[in-house]
């Protein structure tokens, strides 16, 4: 793992997901290992990514089912605009079609809801 702080964007319309991330990763955030930013829609996520000046975000964790633009469309845009940015999908419904689409479009992994934060943490640390 690099020494740099891992900057991660979480995209989910469910309000408590944000709180869960903040709570489960609290120690890592306090120790400066992780930095989380949150967007409640795919549109907000794209807007947010576009405002970043020095782009050193490394990972996007996105829900698939969201009102408005869904996670698969977001994945397409992110992979076109920021090809180096890794994307993982969070999903409550393990739908084969979505899984195939997302994998073809470059999604790295699937995380089932309810999120197993310990497993997610290890996966992220293993990746970076």
């Amino acid at each position: 793992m690099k020494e740099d702080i891992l900057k991660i964007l979480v995209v989910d319309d469910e309000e408590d997901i944000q709180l869960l991330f903040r709570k489960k990763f609290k120690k890592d955030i306090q120790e400066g290992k992780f930095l989380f930013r949150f967007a409640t829609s795919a549109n907000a996520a794209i807007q947010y990514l576009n405002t970043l000046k020095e782009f050193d975000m490394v990972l996007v964790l996105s829900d698939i089912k969201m009102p408005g633009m869904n996670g698969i469309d977001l994945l397409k845009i992110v992979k076109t605009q920021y090809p180096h940015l890794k994307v993982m999908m969070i999903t409550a419904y393990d739908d084969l079609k979505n899984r195939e689409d997302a994998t073809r479009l470059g999604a790295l992994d699937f995380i089932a809801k309810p999120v197993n934060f310990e497993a997610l943490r290890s996966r992220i640390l293993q990746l970076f």
Partner: protein
Amino acid sequence: MEIIKQWIWQIILSVVLIIFILVRYRLFLLHKRQKHQLYIIVSTQEQERQRLAKDLHDDLGTSLSTLRLYIAAMSDLISTQNEDLKQIHGNALQILDTSIRNMREHLFQLNPKIVEEHGLPSAINNYMFKMSRFNKLKFNLHDSHFPEYVSPEIKINIYRIMQELVNNTIKYAEAKSISIQLMYRDKQVIFIYEDDGKGFDNEKIKGGYGLKNISTRVEMLGGTICLDTKPGYGNNVMIEIPSSNKKNHVR
């Protein structure tokens, strides 16, 4: 000879160890005392603000209102021919009205009764509405089922923390928007503050008065604070306060 040498070494080591423990203990006591002093400063500050607000309201406020009644009553007595006097009267009334308005604003800053009267979400909304109007900031408050029965101590302290954070954002962050979430989950009050400003290096600013004041308030309430900020990534703060903590007595 060897045994004496060993003894000497053991004695030296023991002395060093004792000195080390004493120094650590002294530092611990000092830290505890400093913390206690901070608690006292913050809680006295709050009490003084409320006392001053009450005095201002009861004394100066009443006098100004009475004065306004008298001066307003004069308008019937001033003859319509006397233009100069009419203008002076008009000016006096205008100045008086401005003073009353300003005093109300100061009173509000000193003792935001709105927190008790209309609840914390309304109070935050009201404050943010005022601040965003003057500072071209976009503001968004998300409060999902925030219960009214949360103790007044927690509410007033969160309000003060919010003011401190907003002031910091306006002063230093060059942010475009502020977002606040107020929640109540598992008997915990959760306050999340986000701005999209410059962000800062947490390590460098740790001792700043504003942040110290905030963490003292959080500690007084038996809560925790988690600061998530980096240059270029705005400022994110999460505060969790147990709503049934016995420590929640300082106002």
